[in-house]
């Protein structure tokens, strides 16, 4: 692949788990209480070094949304999605914002997030950084 153009962030950085490409800053987190199939997800105001996929409508826990998956430019792995449109008025605040799945990224101190083997036990995940609050 050609010469990658990467934006380099400074501060507390979330990066791609596989290739360590910078993705977002801790200071850009809007909310930590999102969830996805693999567990926790954070809503970010701004994310860099991702390519945006095609728009599609998805039914989520909070209603119908139009979203596009986002992929790390370094390795191409899917790291989350972008909200294009929310059909519910209460959800409009998400439009133009990004979700990074906690499972797909390395935290600012390099910590990772492991999904428990038992998906049915939802919510009971053991991870070090929860105690640290990252």
């Amino acid at each position, binding site marked *: *692949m050609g010469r990658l153009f990467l*934006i*380099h962030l400074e501060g507390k950085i979330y990066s791609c788990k596989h290739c360590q490409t910078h993705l977002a800053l801790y200071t850009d987190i809007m909310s930590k209480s999102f969830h996805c199939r693999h567990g926790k997800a954070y809503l970010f105001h701004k994310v860099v070094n991702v*390519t945006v996929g095609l728009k599609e409508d998805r039914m989520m826990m909070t209603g119908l949304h139009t979203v596009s998956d986002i992929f790390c430019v370094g390795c191409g792995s899917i790291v989350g999605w972008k909200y294009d449109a929310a059909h519910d008025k209460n959800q409009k605040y998400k439009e133009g914002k990004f979700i990074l799945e906690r499972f797909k990224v390395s935290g600012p101190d390099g910590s990772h997030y492991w999904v428990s083997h038992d998906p049915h036990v939802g919510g009971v995940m053991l991870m070090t950084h929860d105690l640290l609050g990252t």
Partner: protein
Amino acid sequence: MGGVEDDEPPSKRVKASTEDLGRPFDNSSRSVPFSPLGGSMARPLPSQGKDDMIGSKGVIKKVEFVRIITKALYSLGYERSGAALEEESGICLHSSAVNLFRKQVLDGNWDESVLTLHKIGLSDESILKSASFLIWERKFFELLQKDRIMDALKTLRSEIAPLGIDKKRVHELSCCIVSPQQRVLLGFANLGLETSNSRLKLLEDLQKLFPPTVMIPERRLEHLVEQALSVQRQGCYLHNSLDNSLSLYTDHHCGKDQIPSRTVQVLQAHHDEVWFLQFSNNGKYLASSSNDRSAIIWEVHEDGELSLKHMLTGHQKPVLMLAWSPDDRQLLTCGMEGAVRRWDVHTGDCLHVYEKGGLGLISCGWFPDGRQIFSGVTDKSTCLWDLDGKELESWKEQRTTRTSDVAITKDGRWIISICRETAIMLVDREAKLEKLIQEDQTITSFSLSSDDKFLLVNLVNQEIHLWSIKDDPGLVTRYRGHKRSRFLIRSCFGGYEQTFIASGSEDSQVYIWHRETGELIKALPGHSGAVNCVSWNPANPHMLASASDDHTIRIWGLNRANLKRKEAYSNGVTHQCNGKGQ
């Protein structure tokens, strides 16, 4: 030129020409008499009388039109044709007084010519005086040349000075009598004063004083045609040819056929993706750099074909970019390992390696005098070295860490670099001024136009912006259509007078826009991988080169149908390129 005598009083002639054959002069000015030739011979046809205007728009006065054609015939040397036209049309080029005047000037009958001058019927006193001055001055100099000093002095005293104009010149002339050097200074010491050429020149100078209707300006028809051609040429917005000869038979209008759109050569020598390429300033070489850790210098031959001249190895990591020295004799390459190398183009030898301990050099360029080089460093500074590696200057905190583009204008004054994700800073080294280009999106790369007045800025959101940077930076045009989502894709100026913008694209095509209008002209398929960089040959507007992830470089030229003749710069040689045609 007709049987009417010159000494007939003007009034008689005016009466004779009341039948409107087309007066060549405005009714407002005192009419200078002319007459149709030989009375009965050139009686106007009744229908012609009212037809003063010709041409479909009715803006061309027939009499004027015929007179300038007549003038053109005479100046081309076709005396008989000129005379025949005057006779047949009944429109005189010049009044007989003017004709006499011209003859007298050319023969050097100065005194008589001044007399005739007053008979031409010029109303403006100052014109008469200026014209008389020129004639007497000429007489003065010719007398001086023949060493008839006393006569020259007499002319100066009794003829030139009494005119009462241009006193300074009169003083200069009197100095000429005394000092031969003064004559040299005034340009009149050379021989040939009496040649017809120099007298013609005097006539031209005189003509410039007169209203144009009295004596038709020299080469007027040629001037009008040149004007028309110039308008056509300016209106040809796709013009892309060094050949500036336009035909008079049809309006000039370039189509897209003047823009390179066909692969004429595929250069396969790199073992990996080609990331950067650039033609030398004189267009005789092309340098390319690749992920395979090498750079290659290609030679551009007279017939437009390129061949490998040197392969430059030595970098330990992919070569990010390169820069030609202003005299094209040396090349700088920048490797991802953080070192810059300087090479001799002729021998291919590495002359120097520049490194900065512990830091990485991520771009390189030449100072306009070719004796200093600069480089962007990973600690956000920009460094200036002399050729031996001694650090001369360092500008700190002016750049982002990884985005590497830095440029210097040809006068060595302005340093241009990406200072923030969305902004480019231009710093005046001397005046310590700063100008800023602020964008809404992240900037990936930029390139400077050859006249240092414009900056082409590539953005993450697949737009290319043209900024004017001469005074306060201002956005001029946007170019869209190409694809970019992951890589550093570069664009460039190119074509005749840099009328076009070209760019690479992640969809494997080369994109070409018209610079002024922003219109997308061409998207050229052919590569089988993202096109990372393009470069337009500065010496050949028909040659474009592109570098791609498919490991090749493509040279683009004109379409086959238009290669009528083999000029030095035409891409006459074609090569088979992977059987896909275009």
